[in-house]
């Protein structure tokens, strides 16, 4: 650029203007100066136009290549809607699994309590028996109560087993949703790569975006990602850290 400018503006030109000014020929000097400045401008503008042209062409080509990329078409029209569908069904499956598990836990609760109460009721008479201090009547009552407990426990144990089995089976969502999540992850990775390639056409150097740029202020983020916890001290990574922070605030 400097080379070209030199060609337009030479020492001879400046000498000529100097001579004209010294000779008192103001008009001629100004005219010469204007014509020099015009040709300078034209060259400069020409360069700018050329650069804008190149940029526009590059942008056009990149957008065209992006839009015509068959894979992008498939991603936008098929893979993305499917990914949304998968994520929605993951919510549904995890919700069902949690409900089944909680239902089973609720069903177990009275069974365990019944067992506890039965044993608690027996204990005084049982302890008396173990210490050899029980009379015949109490012994007969104890036997009857033990009989009741044995039979109810037999039944309750069977029910408990069934509920535990339900809890076990409810965990199958982990395998099924895991497979769906893998599919979504690989799609996200592919889209990420394509977007980065697209962006690289227009940036000289990668602008560093801190992870915090993406999550400003008090907007709820949901559970903190492990990568975020590791990179920033801004997120409490345990209940202890929360407690320490609150303690430092006078809690």
């Amino acid at each position: 650029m400097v080379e070209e400018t030199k060609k337009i503006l030479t020492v001879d030109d400046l000498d000529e203007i100097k001579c004209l000014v010294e000779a008192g020929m103001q008009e001629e000097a100004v005219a010469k100066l204007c014509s020099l400045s015009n040709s300078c401008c034209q060259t400069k503008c020409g360069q700018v136009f050329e650069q804008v042209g190149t940029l526009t062409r590059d942008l056009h080509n990149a957008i065209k290549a992006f839009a015509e990329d068959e894979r992008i078409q498939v991603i936008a029209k098929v893979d993305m809607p499917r990914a949304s569908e998968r994520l929605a069904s993951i919510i549904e499956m995890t919700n069902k699994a949690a409900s089944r598990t909680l239902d089973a836990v609720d069903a177990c609760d009275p069974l365990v309590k019944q067992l506890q109460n039965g044993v608690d009721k027996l204990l005084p008479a049982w302890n008396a028996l173990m210490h050899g201090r029980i009379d015949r009547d109490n012994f007969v009552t104890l036997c009857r109560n033990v009989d009741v407990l044995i039979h109810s426990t037999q039944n309750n144990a069977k029910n408990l087993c069934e509920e535990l089995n339900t809890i076990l089976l409810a965990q199958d969502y982990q395998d099924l949703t895991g497979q769906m999540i893998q599919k979504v992850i690989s799609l996200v990775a592919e889209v990420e790569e394509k977007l980065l390639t697209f962006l690289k056409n227009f940036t000289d150097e990668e602008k560093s975006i801190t992870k915090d740029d993406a999550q400003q202020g008090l907007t709820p983020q949901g559970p903190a990602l492990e990568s975020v916890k590791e990179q920033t001290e801004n997120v409490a990574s345990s209940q202890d850290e929360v407690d320490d922070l609150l303690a430092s605030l006078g809690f």
Partner: protein
Amino acid sequence: MDKNIKILIVDDFSTMRRIIKNLLRDLGFNNTHEADDGATALPMLEAGDFDFVVTDWNMPIMQGIDLLKAIRKSPKLKAMPVLMVTAEAKREQIIEAAKAGVNGYIVKPFTAATLKAKLDKIFERFE
């Protein structure tokens, strides 16, 4: 500690409400009620004789932090103890909740022991 106190559990996920309800039941608190966001919870609190609120932060319509601020603004409810149980763990969020007058802050996932410890601490102060 009075185990008959009336508790409102506010969370948009029914699973989390059930978990908290079960944990509270195990601790002996049986008088629990549920709301699925702040906007549903606030009129229930204004109308009912609740003693304690356990709330999530991230919920649709009215978030937990706004519910907390509304409770502190209400002449009737301003002294009510509020325990926040949330996945939100950013320092400025915890500070914001503290400034708004939260009585306890638990980050999910949490344990039954953590819940018990925070409840004990809150009621220790109120008794």
